[in-house]
């Protein structure tokens, strides 16, 4: 993946977060994506979200597969460890890393091809394991990096730049995640930072697998008329059901008063996500409601966005495995080796 080192321009006035870091400290190398690529907007939202969260960069791990989208882990949080793995297999690498060190914040960035084509199986099983991670799909309906082939997210009838029409049914990652039992399911749009930033924050703080499908247009291969993943289409067909505010533990909590219905979800560290339902009766804690709503939107040719489902009581991979709370990498060798005396006992059983 190519990247250009960005000159670090420091504005003395730049606002600092609670760690004393400015937003620039959360940036990465200069993007080499096409000008106007939706993925760069997602990167900007990620920078904003992690800066606002006071996330210590060296305690975060940026994980990705292969694709234009997967490159973007180089473009934020340069002080974090990153792992650009192989195409479609980022979930397994993250699962292993998380097994070894449960305390880092895992940020997975993938593409629709990476997640729904080659990596479909790994995504599904990471959801089932409820690996504690943020999983962002930068969804443009095509393979950007290999120049515009349809991905499994392409809508029926959508046209490639070469004029071919897709006839295969699309895989909707939101419906998939709901079906597989994901405990945090959201959708947003790369061009809607106001919606995306709080969702990213809530997703990162969620204890378990947080899937965020971000419609992120590919200006080179899929931003034309007839593409349901174009800027114009999403802007005009977006239906925001649930708006989210993320309120970190240590910040003063101001209750927004504009929305009639509100659900407060407390995260494992005590901070809160406040979900404002714009549709009367929408219950973001009900998998059924979410499922029905997303499908109803699809039928109408609309895109359901917002935080669609959350279950903050789910058991994550480590709960299911009953792993010790200390990260396995931090256990001293003495706590792992049974020793000489135990060996004598063990071998006596093989006589």
């Amino acid at each position: 993946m190519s990247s250009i080192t960005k000159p670090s321009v420091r504005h003395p006035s730049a606002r600092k977060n609670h760690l004393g870091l400015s937003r620039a400290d959360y940036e990465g190398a200069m993007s080499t994506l096409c000008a106007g690529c939706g993925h760069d907007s997602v990167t900007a939202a990620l920078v904003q979200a992690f800066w606002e969260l006071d996330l210590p960069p060296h305690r975060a791990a940026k994980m990705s597969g292969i694709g234009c989208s997967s490159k973007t882990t180089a473009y934020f949080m340069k002080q974090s460890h990153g792992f650009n793995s192989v195409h479609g297999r980022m979930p397994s690498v993250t699962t292993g890393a998380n097994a070894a060190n449960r305390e880092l914040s895992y940020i997975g960035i993938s593409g629709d091809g990476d997640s729904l084509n080659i990596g479909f199986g790994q995504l599904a099983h990471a959801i089932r394991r409820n690996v504690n991670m943020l999983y962002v799909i930068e969804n443009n309906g095509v393979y950007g990096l290999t120049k515009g082939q349809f991905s499994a997210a392409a809508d029926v009838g959508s046209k490639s730049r070469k004029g071919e029409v897709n006839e295969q049914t699309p895989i909707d990652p939101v419906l998939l995640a709901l079906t597989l039992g994901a405990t945090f399911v959201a959708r947003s749009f790369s061009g809607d930072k106001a919606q995306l930033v709080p969702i990213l924050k809530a997703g990162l703080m969620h204890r378990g697998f947080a899937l965020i499908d971000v419609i992120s247009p590919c200006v080179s291969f899929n931003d034309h008329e007839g593409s349901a993943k174009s800027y114009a289409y999403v802007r005009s067909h977006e239906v925001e059901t649930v708006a989210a505010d993320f309120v970190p533990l240590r910040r003063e909590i101001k209750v927004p008063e504009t929305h009639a219905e509100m659900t407060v979800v407390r995260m494992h560290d005590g901070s809160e996500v406040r979900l404002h339902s714009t549709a009367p009766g929408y219950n973001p804690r009900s998998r059924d409601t979410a499922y029905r709503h997303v499908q109803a939107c699809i039928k109408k040719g609309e895109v359901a966005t917002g935080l669609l489902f959350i279950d903050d009581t789910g058991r994550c991979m480590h709960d299911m495995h009953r792993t010790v709370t200390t990260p396995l990498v931090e256990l001293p060798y003495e706590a792992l080796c049974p020793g000489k005396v135990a060996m004598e006992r063990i071998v006596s059983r093989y006589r």
Partner: protein
Amino acid sequence: MSGVNDFAFKIGTVNGTGSASANALLMQAIFRMGIPVTGKNIFPSNIQGLPTWYEIRVSRDGYTGRPPLIDLIVALNPSTLKQDIATVRPGGYVLYDSSWPLDAKLTRPDVTLLDVPLGAMCREAFTRDRDRTLLRNIAYAGALAALLQIDIAVIEGIIAEKFGRKKALLDANHRAVHLGYDYARKHFSCPLPFHCAPMDATGDSILMDGNTACALGAVYAGATVGAWYPITPSTSLMDAFKEFCQEFRVDPETGLNRYCIIQAEDELSAAGMVIGAGWMGARSFTCTSGPGVSLMQEFLGLAYYAEIPGVFINVQRTGPATGMPTRTQQGDLLSMAFASHGDTKHIILFPANPAESFALTVAAFDSSERFQTPVFVAIDLDIGMNDWMIPRLTWDDGYRPDRGKVLDAVALEQMPKFFRYVDADGDGVAARSLPGVNGKGAYFVRGSGHDKFGAYTEDSTAYREVVDRIARKFETAARALPAPIIQRQDGADVGIVCVGSPDAPVREAVDRLREQGIIADVMRIRAFPFAPEVTEFLGRYETVFVVEQNRDAQLRALLTIETGVPRDRMTPVLDYAGQPVTAGTVVAAITAQLAGRSA
């Protein structure tokens, strides 16, 4: 030929009928009489109803290879009677269940039939169908005890240990043993000419299979993450790891686990998990077999190039494709050595028995972290799933894991700037940092082209600098990995080379060749890339034989590629049809070759 404490017998049954425990009982009893013994389980890839055999070799000289001849067969499987009777040496014995008539066409004039009405006796003695089937096995064990003079008190002792206070089971088993034992004593002249007599040769030994030993090695090495996808013949390895962890790795206060075993959705995923955990700094491993190694290729290349540790235990089975899952082979040598596209190379350690499976699994974790690269432990079904007599495993509490060059927070803070792939010491190994430790250690792992600073590159010089340094790292590794074991004799003019399980039959063959006037030295290679001694050994002898269990002489190919010794200087001795090679096969191949040359 066969005689006291020097013979072999075989039991042919149907799988799923419970004969395994009777066979284990016999083997353990002989072992406890102080007599060296080995067992080979020849079983089908099936859960119930197909033929299965168990071969037990009693060898006062301590030979553990597959037996050269079968002196007695217990032929209880009607569908293989003909073939089973045919496997006995002339002058041998056939024990069969005379509850049903034996087709006269199947018998041979040159063997002695031992008719024992096992089924009928059990039908009479036991009421439940299940008991009648299961205890028939214990009854043949009893008959063999009488015929082969296996100490009945030792057998009863093992049964008592096994069933403890379960009185009904205990009684039923005792009864069944005596049905066979008493019947044989009454009807045959016991013991047979070949039989057991107590010795004192097993006091410092244990009976263990290689999968258990590898699992124990992973526990003792401090592995915390195991990721796998079930596949014969490796499955019992992760099962054993889990059992040991449940015993030794549960926090006594909280009841929580100091390990994480993940059953992945496939081997690609298992490899990814191993690599993710290795990158984080955990000792992580997987166990698999050939088909799994095929699926792991892409990830192995990533780990090679991004320099991430991880241990990959390959319990080889007969390929290609699904092949014969319950048969042994050494067919993955090349696919492990160069797994993945591009210029890659992987460290492989080759245990020859379960004792080494333990030691080399520990060594694999050390090598993997020291050289920051995946390490294969290559065993095979014969080592992994059969019980071998090995010296008691011991442990030195002074052992400390070799974590290699890992920079801690203090070291990182003191550096002006950390770059991941800079070879500061000239040995090809660059220091690494672990995620989460210190901001100064942060870097970007990538499988794409990178320079020594870890940055993306498409520059030829910068690319080459890194891949050439990795090649240097493997040269360092070749000198540091477990050295070959070389057994020399005065006046040797033939060299024999092998890896892994053929070691036992090869050493037995060397003894037999000496009796025929052929003096051979043996080199058993224990690691790839090859140590300098390997090339040196190959150059010493005019005639070098390479014994291996695959069709295409893969070890010879590797030796040719890596040492520069011309291929045709090395004569392959190949046995690749799924059964462990025997000393007889090796002797025959070598004598035939040498005879052909002098003619």
